[in-house]
């Protein structure tokens, strides 16, 4: 570049007229802007493709094994299930029913239509069952005290049913549900969704049964800690008229929104939260409990609006083939620290597992257990995380000879980051198609209900209550 060029190009605009060089250099940003536009457009197209992929099924042409599904109850839990189901291919939503017609029902209907499902909406489930033809399955997420009536009516109408847990708030109703399923010949899956969670299945089938990593199991523990929370509210302009509420068994809007806390409607936190985890005790230990004692009460919230206990601790005894196992379960609704998980302890190891995707470890008891290197090499477990002594954590003086050395922690290598309820729903729909067996059929749900509902009875009785093995049979 000669001297003249340099002068022209590098100096601030001269007093000459606008020339070609001014134009070229003046518009230097335009191609950059174009490049950004193309990049942003591609990025956006990618994002949309991912989103529509997740909402699979709706736009695809109908296939032979597509299932026609109705939703009964689309409150908070129904919403969770609906969002999981929107990710499952091969489902055609046909009808939605909820008594909160200008709020929940509207929201669910609009959501489904947005995803291309032509749904009819109903306030009364009987009208839905009368008018909707060609349904294959119903997913029920109504309050516990409605489960029996809804489930039995749907089964008798010839539909397969996925019903949220707890099966019912009374054992008589739960039994009627299981019997109705047997008589109808239709499927009834109960929503203990951990039964289909790949991490739980792996822990049970491989770690406990196949490898027997824990050795002789002696104790189990489970907890669900939740932070203190105000009662659920509702938008005043969408209030359900009192006459409608009464028709469906509620005394007030407050009771309708907070039914879980009311006796006769729900079972309280021990049932809402504990039943998931107490179900894991029975599954992993391979037996139903022998006895339960419990302490609980409404210690924190207003007793008039929280009839069920906000804090419960229960101790179960299990008689396994290898000996007695004692299990402690705690639910607290006033502090969320440490969250929720289940823990099993044997003489060779400890398993800590949770539905929460980042909790899942086994700890090897160094004093007794064989090395687990094989299982690490096979890819079942991560490399052990060793307790390292650093200058900051100098335990020289603090380490007491009576303390045993800390166990190695191995993380479960199997990851599961999808919607928690999706595998259980998939299991149900695949069972409807005849390709799988239900992971939690009515009989299992019933056993779980027997074990859990007795906690509330034990709290009232203030003594150990025993289970008759016959009790667990429908």
């Amino acid at each position, binding site marked *: 570049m000669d001297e003249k060029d340099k002068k022209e*190009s*590098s100096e*601030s605009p001269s007093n000459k007229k*606008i020339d070609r060089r*001014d134009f070229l*250099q003046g518009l230097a*940003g335009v191609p950059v802007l174009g490049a950004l536009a193309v990049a*942003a457009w591609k990025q956006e197209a990618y994002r949309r493709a991912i989103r529509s992929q997740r909402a699979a099924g709706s736009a695809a042409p109908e296939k032979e094994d597509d299932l026609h599904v109705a939703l009964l109850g689309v409150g908070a839990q129904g919403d969770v299930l609906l969002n999981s189901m929107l990710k499952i291919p091969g489902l055609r939503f046909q009808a939605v029913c909820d008594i909160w017609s200008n709020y929940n029902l509207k929201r669910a209907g609009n959501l489904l239509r947005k995803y291309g499902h032509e749904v009819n909406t109903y306030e009364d489930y009987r009208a839905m069952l009368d008018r909707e033809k060609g349904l294959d399955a119903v997913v029920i997420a109504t309050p516990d005290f409605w489960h029996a009536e809804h489930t039995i009516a749907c089964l008798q109408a010839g539909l397969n049913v996925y019903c949220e847990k707890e099966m019912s708030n009374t054992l008589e109703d739960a039994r009627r549900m299981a019997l109705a399923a047997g008589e109808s010949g239709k499927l009834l899956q109960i929503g203990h969704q951990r039964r289909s969670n790949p991490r739980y299945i792996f822990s049970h089938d491989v770690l406990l049964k196949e490898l027997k990593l824990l050795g002789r199991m002696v104790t189990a523990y489970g907890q669900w800690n939740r932070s203190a929370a105000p009662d659920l509210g509702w938008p005043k302009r969408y209030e359900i008229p009192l006459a409608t509420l009464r028709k469906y068994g509620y005394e007030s809007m407050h009771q309708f929104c907070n039914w879980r806390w009311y006796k006769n409607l729900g079972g309280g936190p021990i049932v809402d939260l504990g039943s998931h985890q107490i179900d894991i005790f029975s599954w992993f230990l391979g037996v139903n409990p022998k006895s339960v004692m419990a302490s609980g009460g409404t210690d924190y919230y207003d007793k008039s609006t929280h009839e069920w206990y906000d804090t419960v601790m229960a101790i179960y005894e299990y008689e396994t083939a290898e000996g007695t196992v004692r299990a402690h379960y705690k639910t607290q609704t006033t502090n969320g620290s440490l969250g929720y998980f289940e823990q099993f302890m044997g003489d060779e190891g400890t398993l800590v597992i949770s539905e929460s995707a980042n909790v899942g470890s086994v700890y090897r008891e160094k004093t007794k257990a064989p090395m687990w290197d094989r299982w690490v090499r096979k890819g079942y477990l991560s490399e052990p995380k060793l307790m390292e002594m650093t200058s900051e954590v100098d335990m020289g003086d603090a380490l007491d000879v009576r303390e045993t050395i800390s166990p190695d922690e191995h993380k479960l290598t199997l990851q599961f980051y999808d919607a928690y309820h999706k595998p259980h729903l998939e299991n149900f729909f695949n069972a409807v198609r005849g390709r799988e067996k239900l992971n939690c059929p009515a009989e299992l749900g019933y056993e779980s209900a027997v074990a859990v509902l007795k906690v509330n009875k034990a709290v009232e009785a203030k003594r150990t209550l025993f289970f008759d093995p016959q009790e667990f049979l429908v």
Partner: protein
Amino acid sequence: MKDARLSNWQWISLVVLRMLIGWHFLYEGVAKLLKGNWSAYGFLMESKWIFADLFQWMAQNSTVLSVVNTLNMWGLVLIGLGLILGIFTRIAAGAGVVLILLYYVCNPPFVGLFYSIPTEGSYLFVNKNIVELAALLVLMAIPSEQFAGMDRILYKFLKES
């Protein structure tokens, strides 16, 4: 202008710097607009240091928050366009400095302040925001738009008329 006698290499590097910052601003704005429901709520509520009350007030007042959201999204877009195209460049760079300064004082990486918003690096007093701010000051000080940018045309056009 004695101080404007820079070599082409010096001018080009400044223009590249300007366009990179412009790209960053513009895409930050565009991405928020495309998201549809983006809000500064989380960021403002995380505010630490002496202006925390002010920022949290902004977050909690829904009218103020929607104004803040709109201003931020469109501010980012306009500043980005200004820097990439080199049009009203000094104004754009100045506005960018103000915007970044707001982000900085909202959540400054000072000794003893911790955030739950995860960050990808380790910062003490100096974070990437403040580096970008300093770069914008350089662009305000040296008019790279007069080498390459629409301001170059605009400047001549105004002189001609």
